[in-house]
């Protein structure tokens, strides 16, 4: 059933003519047309926060860089997704993420299945451009099935959003600000004592890095099943 009248807008992404529903974002239309824009905090079906800034794009005629996950499309706009300026910025931003906490891939359970790692490979980031500033957090292994390692967290808040928007538990939130910001359970309690956590594991499946993982899993086993969550969201939408 189509509720509102759906209008279509026509515009260009990287010189390719594309069309999209008038209420779409640039990122959505790019995906529909097989144009790749890198993302980290974005997850289909969750609210968009525009926080990681990896999906920034240029619009011809404007000097501003805007995140394609939150920017709505406009008729006749010309989007550029891969200029050398954008790539330079993305490299620096990725470097900053690596520098912020510990991402030693060789000793991470997500090695080989990590979105951060693949972004770095895709963009050709061979070494960090900025100095490491990591301070070190305690790992929370109190939950019987899952482990939370803040040292590998990139603060994308996918776990926070999936927990509140899909599971409806809102067991997770953010504490502190700046580089001291940290994902917490309830009022910063050990995960095992969280009364609102339903142990559904959705947070673990959507976490792009090795910050949330299943206990006892090896690097070959710990493949995130994001589709469980995105399929569920889609199913609810279609109901």
């Amino acid at each position: 059933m189509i509720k509102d009248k759906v209008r279509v807008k026509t515009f260009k992404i990287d010189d390719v003519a594309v069309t999209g529903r008038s209420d779409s974002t640039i990122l959505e239309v790019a995906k529909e047309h097989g144009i790749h824009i890198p993302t980290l905090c974005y997850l289909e079906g969750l609210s968009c926060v525009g926080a990681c800034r990896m999906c920034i794009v240029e619009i011809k005629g404007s000097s501003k860089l805007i995140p394609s996950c939150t920017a709505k499309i406009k008729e006749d706009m010309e989007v550029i997704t891969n200029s050398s300026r954008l790539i330079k910025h993305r490299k620096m931003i990725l470097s900053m993420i690596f520098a912020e906490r510990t991402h030693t891939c060789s000793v991470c359970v997500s090695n080989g299945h990590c979105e951060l790692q693949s972004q770095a490979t895709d963009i050709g980031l061979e070494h960090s451009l900025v100095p490491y500033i990591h301070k070190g957090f305690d790992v929370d292994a109190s939950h019987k099935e899952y482990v939370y390692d803040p040292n590998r967290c990139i603060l994308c808040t996918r776990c926070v959003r999936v927990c509140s928007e899909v599971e409806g538990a809102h067991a997770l939130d953010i504490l502190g600000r700046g580089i001291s910001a940290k994902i917490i359970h309830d009022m910063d309690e050990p995960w095992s004592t969280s009364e609102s956590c339903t142990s559904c594991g959705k947070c673990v499946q959507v976490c792009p890095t090795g910050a949330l993982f299943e206990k006892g899993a090896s690097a070959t086993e710990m493949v995130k099943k994001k589709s469980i969550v995105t399929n569920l969201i889609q199913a609810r939408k279609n109901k």
Partner: protein
Amino acid sequence: MIESLEELLAHALKKKESEKNSHEELRVCIGSSCASLGADELKKGLKTKVKDENLDKQCSVKGVGCNGLCSAAIMVSHYDKEKELETIYGGVEQNDIDDLVGIIKDKSSLENKKCDMNEPFFTKQKKIVLENAGVIDPDDIDDYIAHGGYIALFTALEEMRPEDIINEVKVSGLRGRGGGGYPTGLKWETVAKVESNQKYIVCNGDEGDPGAFMDRAVMEADPHKIIEGMALCAYACGADKGYIYVRAEYPEAVKKLNKAIKQARNNGILGNQIANSGFNFDLEVRLGGGAFVCGEATALVTSIEGNRGQPRQKPPHLSNSGLWGEPTILNNVETFANIAPIIKNGGEWYSSMGTKNSTGTKVFALTGNIKNTGLVEVPMGITLRELIYDIGGGVTDDKPLKAIQTGGPSGGCIPEELLDIKVDYDSLKEVGSIMGSGGLIVMDENSNMLEVARFFMEFSKDESCGKCVPCRVGTTELTNLLDKFVKKEASKSDFQLLKDMCEVVKESSLCGLGQAAPNPVLSTIKYFENEYLEGIKDD
């Protein structure tokens, strides 16, 4: 209940009548700076003494808001109503009480503490926002009314259509005083045009810039003026509810505002059917926790809604989707304080002051190595030199001036050579700084520009909300790098990295905090590059 302009004017007259016998006023500044030195005690002592000497019929003693010259706290002024003559005394202490009373008795004494009213500090200022500061008792709505308060609102409700108000504001050329300088009339027009059953008016009294206290002074000295400006805005845009967001560290401002709101309600100036016009408007004060980022428009709105005060990506703009998703107007305290005078005197009157693109006046908080620290209101377009040397009295100890920092953590440093530029939005921007909310720090030859840049970067780092990567990590990285320069331990490649990182943080951060954080670094690199080069160690 005051139900018409006629009743309002009668109300004002009654107040003046009641004070008929008192020909003089002793006004004690009880603004935060003076209060911290014991102004309240002084006022009490003075009251008792005046009464003891049987002078209380002839002279009233009242507490007033900030008079401006904070470096001369405690300030007391003597006002002769017949001659309309004000004499200001600075550095007044408890043991001056007898001499103060002497002024009423035989018009002598306390000569040594008398300020020269012919000094440019007094003559070169132009007070619109601060016209009542230091003059009226902020706790007394009747005093505000007796000084012409609420005439603009009642006139508007009786004689003007909403679009007339917006038109006056547009003609006035007023631009937002919170930092961005967005045309106020245009902002109002946008929201007035949006169709919605619910709209909100929000006043930004967060004032997070370090060293700034302009908005605090206005809230403490003349709270009704803000209420009147907001009510006019609400009428013009079709809103019936407003919030004033004030940081909890401003308890005196909060107290004054709450009291003023209550008094306005009791007089029918807030609430339903204001002035029998069918216009409803009410206001509430909301407290902020004092995070700099909560002054950012979208974060402030999120904070009022009761959530973690974090910015969100614009668009959607507040004019479309603000508080609880409804169309919202957010303006700064000083912006709202300009509205009643504009409606009362007309937009053209306002636009005849200042420059073409920056009309009216601006309040500045002068601090740093300057003789007259405090609050001043000057016409836009005045040169920095006049502002610093005439009004500010020059650099402390007559040392050579090195630079002026304007615009707080989002601003930049202007070198001495550019002292003759005009103080307006465009000129300041042209030289790599901004007007900001009006903080102005004067720095003498001994100031280290690297330390200045590091100070502001560290502030931004501490205040970054942590939502987006470039600001969260970038401000920390930049602070660390600047630290290396200050310690003269930086390498050549660090200088390139510093510049590259500034570019990324500026261009890719989510909100104004991150986008502006590199400005103090970029402007000091522009004018004081040699200091950066001196921070590089020889290999």
